[in-house]
């Protein structure tokens, strides 16, 4: 692959990633991947009313509360990111 081509391919990929949040790539870290997974899951639970009711019923909470807590958790579902190695 010529350097020019690689350059365009990368920008395209970057563009796609910017556009479709949550898309993975070859060098994704475990933390990023898991965080995306959790955010997707929470969004899916909030979007599917029966699932929200199911959790609310099991936990003895109002569905409104479950929805709120799920959305809150989307901010940082898996704790802080790991420390970056010095490079």
């Amino acid at each position: 692959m010529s350097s020019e081509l690689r350059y365009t391919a990368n920008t395209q990929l970057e563009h796609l990633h910017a556009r479709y949040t949550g898309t993975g790539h070859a060098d994704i870290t475990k933390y990023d991947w898991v965080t995306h997974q959790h955010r997707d899951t929470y969004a899916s639970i909030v979007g599917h009313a029966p699932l929200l009711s199911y959790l609310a019923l099991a936990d003895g909470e109002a569905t409104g509360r479950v929805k709120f807590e799920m959305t809150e958790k989307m901010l940082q579902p898996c704790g802080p990111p790991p420390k970056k190695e010095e490079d």
Partner: protein
Amino acid sequence: MHLYNLTLQPPTAVTQAIVGNFSGVRAQEIIVSRGTRLELLKPDPNTGKVSTILTHDVFGTIRSLVAFRLTGGTKDYAIVGSDSGRLVILEYDPKANAFVKLHQETYGKSGVRRIVPGQYLAVDPKGRSVMIAAMEKAKLVYILNRDAAANLTISSPLEAHKNHAIIHHIVGVDVGFENPLFAALEVDYSESDQDPTGAAFEKAEKMLTYYELDLGLNHVVRKWSEPTDKRASMLLQVPGGQTSSEGKHDGPSGVLICCEGYIIWRHMDTEQHRIPIPRRRHPLDERSREVIIVAAVMHKMKGAFFFLLQSEDGDLFKVTIDHEDEDVKALKIKYFDTVPVASSLCILKSGFLFVASEFGNHYLYQFQKLGDDDDEIEYSSASYPENGMANPLPQAYFRPRALENLVLADELNSLDPIVDAKVTNLLNTDTPQIFAVCGRGARSSFRMLRHGLDVEETVSSELPGIPNAVWTVKLKAEDQYDAYIVLSFINGTLVLSIGETIEEVSDTGFLSSSPTIAVQQIGEDSLLQVYPHGIRHVLADRRVNEWRCPQHTTIVAATTNTRQVVIALSSAQLVYFELDLEGQLNEYQDRKALGSGVLAMSIAEVPEGRQRTPYLAVGCEDQTVRIISLDPDTTLENISLQALTAPPSSICIAEIMDASIDKNQLTMFVNIGLQNGVLLRTVLDPVNGQLTDTRTRFLGSRPVRLIRVNVHGSPSILALSSRSWLNYTYQNLLHFTPLIFDPLEYAWSFSAELCPDGLIGISGNVLRIFQVPNLGQKLKQDVIPLSYTPRKMLQHPTERLFYVIESDHRVLSPEAVDTKLQKLKGTGQRVDQEVIDLPPEIFGRPRADAGAWASCIQVIDPVNVRSVLEITLDNNEAAFSLAVTTFTSRPGELFLVIGTAQDVIVAPRSCKSGFLRTYKISENGTGLEFLHKTELDDVPLALLAFQGRLVGGVGKALRMFDIGKKRLLRKCENKSFATAIVTLTTQGSRIIVGDMAESIYYATYKPPENRLLVFADDSQPRWITASTMVDYDTVCAGDRFGNVFVNRLAAKVSEQVDEDPTGAGILHEKGLFMGAPHKTDMLCHYYVGDIVTSMHKVSLVAGGRDIVLYTGLHGSIGVLIPFVSKEDVDFIRTLEQHMRTEAPSLVGRDHLAYRGYYVPVKAVVDGDLCELFSLLPTQKQQSIAAELDRTYSEVLKKLEQMRVTTTGF
């Protein structure tokens, strides 16, 4: 295997409700979303009753719903956000009674995705634009307008995206006619994702951001963004903008921000106001956290507005804003009333509040007052420093009390949530009943569901003898109500007059010394009585014209309408009379000889504006039905003939609306009841008099009697056999449903002032007046209240009893309440007993933080509709599973084993200790004798009686127990399960284990070696919620995401496992894909759209096929019907394919993609979609039918047959 999925009862939960003038007239309607269905409800402001006008399955997940109205318009439209990746604008067409899709704008991928809009919708209050947003990042704004022809137009979308922003809520800001403004509550996660120290996460701010749609530039700009409370959850629109005429402001504009514990009013560049959400002054409440607002509604009246906010406990608060034009002086809050926690609140202009409960029945309340001048404490932001913005804000309290401002007007039954169900025939009727445990907390209930219409009896009075027929009759054609009840006895006739009381009258002109065959109000103002020896025509002035039978003959049958009379003589002759213009009854010159004795006859009512009905149906002893002309040119000529399988007992011609046959006019049905209890329904062709489209149905063991009646203002047919059935029109389609009522011998319409739409019937010597209040509800419910959220239920093996276990999280148990009360009293504090004694069904039980449980075991007697016994659990234990079992070592005794756990944390699942509580069942099942308690290391989520022992799923382990003196004894164990065992079913020595996240395992027990071995599992991970064995090798299960599927084990493997005596072969087989050595094959897969909570293999009609019935969490009940022949499969599948193109989803979801949401649909046909065939325009019906090489009535017949022969619905 191929399955046909049918919904018997659509979901009853309401996920969202909106109010508006959808039909364009003054009255307001409510549109509710039931998850996958849209329903239009109409509350009647006079009676306060809610009726369903239209339901429509959208074949998609409805996520958001708003009503909007164009500037200056009078009609509201509904905008729907769904999982289709499309914005859909719907209009209600009251003429066609249908939703019309005006616009469908595609903006993204389908499915419920994080960054695809659909979750939130907000409209500009002036109806100029709409914003649709996702959970994260994406926000699109559409401009709405009208074109020259006043049609609604929609622009292409404008983006208002913000990367890395999680959206909590959006709302349209009321700015009058300035540029439309939207407010969003957002959190940016980009910094906290980068900061390993966690400091950025701590500092992350929730921003209130205004997005302005610049109508001039056609562009959306982020106008203003300010941090607000970290725990803000919801935004509310505050009225604003200037009214053009006076230049006065409607309100201060801006938004209310609902936070945990507070409400903040906020607008650009002004000071904020904050008030606390008052907390309940409840001596037992021990929650550490503040409440949030879960539902809210703003209501504008002339020159004023207020908010009703509902906390997660169900308390309603009235919030008002004191303002001078745009300056807010104070934000005020006070306690209003307490109603069940809602998913949506709607205020109607007619003074009603519609509460769409998140769980359980929905309510319509009427406002008595608006809480203006009561002595409830009002908290105002003006009385706090800095308008309440100074921290800390002192805590506010209120005292909960019974309703003061609202009064209940109507209740809509809802099964939501069905937690568990059983199908069995306890009442020994023709069909089994469904027993379901529903609801949540103190509003839970045990419900017995029976297929049939509920009947409300108003009068029941005994008569001196046993009458064989009853009629009611008006005096004049234009009378609204009936005047007489006529009862025919074996040797006489009794006439009762209907007034303030019902009493006997003798001066009516009716012959009382003879039985009666028919009674009719005829012509303008005269009456007619047919008795065995003649006809009496009673004129208005009580003069009687009498026609007598020829000698040696009697009248055996008669049929009448307001202008025509036909009688059959014992000499097998027909005599025809017609009313002339002077009101004289004239006999037609010829009598018709039939050659066979007449058993039954019928003519239809005179069509409006006509002289006569042209057809007569006569049923004869030779097992035929003849259609005879009454037309003046061809009077009494034979037209057609239909042969029957048994002698007819009754015939009824009626013109009834059925949109599946004819959309525009009534269809003339000839119903023929046979002596063997079968009903034939045929359609009479109005042009040539031929009988077509015959459908049969078995009604009961007695000869059928058919009566034309009026129900809810439209003609219907009552069919009486050993059960009573009603054939009626509901939402333009014909339905045939049994009445849940004692069998009747005869019945007739009954209309009086007190009961304008009733029926009168006789059963034995009792005269009964009743009505059918709700035609929409085909399942009658008998409700027994429960104490806590039910978890599971089980039937006693022989007695008519159910054992229900109930447990509530975050609730104080009675034991904890007592200790706490003792403690409070001990410290000498005054305890507000009145608050403690408030009914828990409305106010809930005393709440606590996570980890507190209240739980009980209840014995329910559904036949006598009562709870027999309740055992409350102590030590913060909660019950999760139960089994009724026998033990080989204790023959003749029956035990109830309850799986409980102490101090359970729901997620991540943990407990201090699990237990198996063993009770001995005594006193025919009504007594429970506690024997012992066995400690376990995890929560037992599933228990099963197995070959004289007990098998339990204890966390990840499958264990087998036998009974001992002091405890249950562990016999063997298998710990190879992935997550936790949630379901157990068995046949023979095989145990089917459902894992919480890893699908179905096939295990077997090998007694010689005392081994529990897993020999097969699924190749897919699945979050099992319910399962049932369809046969020895096949299992049908449902998962948490709303799928149902069927898995089958290869016959060879099955045989091999059973032939291995010790299980050594399985034990040493090599595992496949890190699991069991064998994998099951998936045969069928289908997305239901509701979480399946129980599954049963049952037969719903006597002698019918076995089908799988499932219940869904949101209150749906559906069935999976196996196809019997390959032709049927091909036929219905082709029909389904056509339907996919001809009846596209209302929300624009691709049907195939929807039913294959997680896994592609496999070998299941969507019956609900196929049944929409009956609502298609006739032309489309015909073209589809032509492609299938059938007529459209054959297609309809096939669909009905699929439903009726297997479910009886």
